């Protein structure tokens, strides 16, 4: 649920900012049914005041913690992102980053891993391979591919992180309902991208003016993403 509380960036002379709140929500048909099925007889379990008692196998959109907001801006310095692999899986299920960013991979599994990144589009054949990473070792890899990607290992099927890479994108990870901010921006037109791996992306152009902060709140739902698709 959106509230009015989201921190704006500090105002800097000649600069502007973008801030807001990013959330995810269930399908509108689900919410509608929830409203009309409140009580212990609800098909979704015991519900009270639109608050579903989510079963373990259901997606609780208000608890999602891997939502990303990305800002496309020129002359962006490469960022570094950390991921750890154990025998059971990766430390993050998804990661948004810029082409040219560095991925610092720590192999905390019990065997060496041959990591690679592949385009996921069925027409895409792009592949980026990395040297074998020994058990216990850490290495930095620069991301060359762009688009919807997967980081995988040839040696363990459990190791998988979904990547969204875009040129000149500064991405921030938030939990559903959290606020975000990008400050110290030159006045002009900027592209914002909101992403959750299972719900896809919504893009929006935002005008930034000097000494002003533009607020952009967004809620990712199945229907809103598909309308924008």
């Amino acid at each position, binding site marked *: 649920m959106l509230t009015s509380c989201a921190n704006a960036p500090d105002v800097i002379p000649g600069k502007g900012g973008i801030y807001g709140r990013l959330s995810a929500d269930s399908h509108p048909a689900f919410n509608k049914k929830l409203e009309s099925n409140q009580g212990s007889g609800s098909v979704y379990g015991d519900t009270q005041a639109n608050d579903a008692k989510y079963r373990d*196998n259901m997606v609780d959109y208000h608890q999602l913690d891997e939502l990303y907001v990305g800002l496309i801006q020129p002359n962006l310095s490469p960022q570094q992102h950390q991921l750890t692999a154990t025998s059971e899986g990766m430390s993050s299920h998804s990661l948004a980053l810029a082409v040219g960013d560095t991925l610092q991979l720590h192999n905390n599994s019990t065997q060496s891993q041959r990591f690679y990144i*592949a385009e996921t589009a*069925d027409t895409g054949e792009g592949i980026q391979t990395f040297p074998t990473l020994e058990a216990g070792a850490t290495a930095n890899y620069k991301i060359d591919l762009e688009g919807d990607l997967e980081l995988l290992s*040839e040696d363990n099927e459990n190791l998988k992180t979904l990547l969204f890479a875009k040129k000149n994108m500064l991405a921030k990870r938030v939990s559903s309902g959290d606020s975000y901010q990008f400050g110290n921006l030159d006045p002009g037109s900027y592209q914002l991208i909101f992403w959750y791996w299972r719900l896809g992306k919504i893009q929006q152009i935002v005008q930034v003016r000097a000494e002003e902060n533009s607020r952009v709140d967004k809620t990712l739902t199945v229907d809103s993403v598909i309308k924008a698709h």
Partner: protein
Amino acid sequence: MKKRCLYFLLAGLAYFSMSPSLAAQSIAGHIDAPQQVKQVVVYLQAEGAVKSVQSQQVHKVSQKETAFHAPLTVISAGDKVQWSNDESKEIDHNIFSLSPVASFDLGLGEKGSILEQTFKNTGIVNYYCSVHKTMEGRIIILPNRHFQTLDRPGDFLIDNVPEGNWILNAVVLHLRYKAEALKLSIGKAPVTNLTLKIIKK
């Protein structure tokens, strides 16, 4: 009566002898793949502009115990997929996809309901239920019905392939690998002992 039967028999023979060639052959071979590769769909694609008219088929996917059965459906362009909610309890499911090949949101389906979608374009469509975490499915849409799905690489056989020039290829459900497509000229004899190699991208 006998004369009339003979007349229809001769007329039928004359009709089929004047019809365009309906010859069709089988194609058989082996998929040569590394052990990491599991499911593959071997298929034929007509080389050049070949128009074939095929009736729409309906493929059924069951939603039961919060999973899609089967999770993989292979169809031909123009076919329809129907998802039936076969849960034993009152559980709703949603089906949506953000695939560039086909993005859709079929809404919420109650127990006993059927949701459906027709797929016009070829490609791969990953779809989900927005209500349940683990419900993921995939549809592979091919240009025709000349295909075979293999759970593991091995021998394949595709029947009733019309004469002409074809490309033998495979959808490999492992992002590290792809098939090394083969050009084939199908004549009046079966094609056997083909080897389709699965190689690293």
